[in-house]
């Protein structure tokens, strides 16, 4: 009798266990799988300007996609999971973070924008070639595109030189204005040196004399450098690559009347507007001049509205152009590519799909055969008094 009772209880228990297990399996079958995107950018620290906006834009895109119910790849539903790491611009820290991504099987890495960070993780990335894709904005990534062991690499920030390069076009514009001599005052760091190499050639090819001075990153008082460089009487000053120094350089240069014409390839037009009555000309490359695009482009006004709602803060017009790199559009491009490739983990197929499909979102973007991005950008010119003119250049046409 006792044995029968015991056997009955065992069967009931087994039944309950099976029921619980069954419900679990059914739940798992209905649940959406997750595609992980790792983002490795400086969100704090002295070079945070470059990663901050990319991190904000990518987060917003992931939120929008997930809120819309995710996406379907080969009939299966997926959601995105964004894992953001703050490198603080520190190569050593970034190395540890990147290794963690690889250990966790992250197949899509957004960033880095900083060349010093890219240079430190690149040897580790090479060991995982073929297993993931990296959407890097770093200038240093450009020369490695299409080389052996770098199948994982896509360069997301457009390149200065080459036929479609914005730098080539801007130097040509200077040449048209009859400029003979330019003084370049740049940070003495990885990108500063790369920029000095790129622009030495571009100016030489254009027949414009270029004098280069490099300064210690973190410098705030440029009076000695400016006075020294002004002695050569250059037509234009080509100063630094971030607003953190541009505000100070433009103010100090105009205050003492040493320079009134500026040529900018990275940085906003904020310093020109602040000193609008002291400058003569301020020519700047801007991936997108959001202030005017907001009025004319639907995608841009939608992005700005979504940003304000999501982050509950004013839209950072001066930082927003940096969202051109490994940011909002690239998340959508990746999702589209996964759909087209009918896979979320075959990185070769996904890369092929990415490179064969132009995208028209916040920016009009495409990749060339090496993985170099080409996108529509703006050339903004500020004249004395603050008059702004914008020329949109579309190298994709």
């Amino acid at each position, binding site marked *: 009798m006792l044995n029968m009772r015991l056997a009955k209880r065992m069967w009931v228990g087994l039944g309950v266990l099976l029921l619980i297990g069954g419900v679990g399996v059914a739940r798992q079958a209905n649940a959406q799988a997750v595609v992980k995107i790792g983002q490795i950018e400086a969100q704090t620290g002295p070079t945070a300007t470059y990663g901050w906006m990319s991190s904000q834009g990518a987060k917003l895109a992931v939120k929008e996609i997930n809120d819309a119910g995710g996406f379907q790849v080969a009939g299966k539903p997926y959601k995105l999971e964004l894992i953001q790491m703050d490198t603080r611009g520190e190569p050593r820290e970034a190395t540890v973070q990147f290794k963690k991504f690889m250990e966790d099987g992250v197949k899509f890495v957004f960033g880095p924008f900083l060349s010093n960070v890219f240079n430190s993780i690149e040897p580790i990335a090479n060991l995982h070639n073929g297993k993931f894709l990296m959407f890097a904005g770093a200038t240093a990534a450009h020369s490695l595109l299409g080389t052996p062991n770098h199948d994982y690499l896509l360069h997301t920030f457009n390149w200065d030189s080459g036929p479609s390069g914005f730098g080539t076009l801007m130097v040509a514009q200077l040449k048209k204005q009859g400029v003979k001599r330019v003084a370049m005052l740049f940070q003495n760091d990885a990108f500063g040196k790369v920029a000095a190499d790129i622009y030495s050639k571009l100016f030489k090819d254009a027949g414009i004399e270029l004098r280069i001075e490099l300064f210690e990153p973190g410098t705030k*008082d440029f009076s000695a450098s400016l006075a020294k460089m002004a002695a050569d009487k250059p037509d234009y000053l080509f100063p630094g690559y971030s607003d953190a120094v541009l505000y100070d350089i433009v103010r100090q240069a105009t205050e003492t009347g040493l320079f009134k014409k500026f040529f900018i390839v990275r940085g906003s037009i904020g*310093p020109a507007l602040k000193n609008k009555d002291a400058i003569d000309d301020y020519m700047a490359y801007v991936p997108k001049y959001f202030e005017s695009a907001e009025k004319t482009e639907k995608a841009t006004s939608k992005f700005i509205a979504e940003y304000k709602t999501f982050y509950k803060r004013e839209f950072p017009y001066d930082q927003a152009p940096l969202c051109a790199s490994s940011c909002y559009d690239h998340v959508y491009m990746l999702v589209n590519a996964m759909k087209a490739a009918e896979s979320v983990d075959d990185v070769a197929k996904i890369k092929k799909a990415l490179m064969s499909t132009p995208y028209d979102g916040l920016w009009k973007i495409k990749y060339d055969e090496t993985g170099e991005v080409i996108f529509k950008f703006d050339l903004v010119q500020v004249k004395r008094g603050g008059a702004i003119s914008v020329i949109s250049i579309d190298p994709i046409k």
Partner: protein
Amino acid sequence: MSQLVIGQLLNGAIVGTLYAILALAVTLTFGITGIVNFALGAFMMMGGYLTWYAHDSLQMPYAIAVVAAVVAVGVVGLVTDLCLFRFTRNNLVNGLLVSIGLISIIEAGVLIVWTATPKDLAYVLPGVIEAAGISAPKIKLVVFALLLLVILGTYLALTRTWTGRAAFAYAQNSEAAALMGVNTAALESAVMVYSAMLAGLGGALYASLYSLEPTLGSAFILKAVEAAIMAGIGNAIGALAGGVILGITEGVGSIYLPIAFRDAYGLVFLVAILLVKPNGLFGGKS
């Protein structure tokens, strides 16, 4: 060329007083509490941001914005002293660790509130004064005069008032000072708050000269410690001299040598001084 050199001598002296005000804060804190407070750089940054916010966003007149920022930083100095530094008195390592942790917290806080976008205060006193072919921005000259006044005022307060003499006595022999009726706990807190206010003032005036970013304090505190060591720790006038020497070395060095190594010129000068005078220019014999 001579105009360039004279211009940089003047500019170096002006920039040097900014190093000096922070060096004075470092030297006072260390002399009384035994703490090398690296967070003073972050307090300076905070002073700059609060001034910018009060002036540009709240539309306060610049002078009132400066006073408000200095008082606010003083309050932060008091709170951090009561909550953190009070427990690290005369413990160099603990004090250092707490101050470094505080830098991260303050920088992250500023980044969250005001983002990484550089902030540039509306110009307070635009224009330059020109004389003998040398031009100097008016605001730089005003900042220079104000900082000199505060540093010399602090020196006089330290040497001519009872509290100042009590501070000196405490720095030499804390037990004897306590036995003579000096309220040591209050004195330590007062020095921490005053140092924070000096740093805040440095930041508030800095904001009228240069753009602001959350990490500006980190670079400045290193220069301030350099200036304090160069002069000899514990000397108010020495802090001024150390800052000015550092500023001039950087400015004039940048004319003849590559600008890229500007920060190194001051360090080379520091090493040279320490080789000859190990206790600094104004430090006594050990």
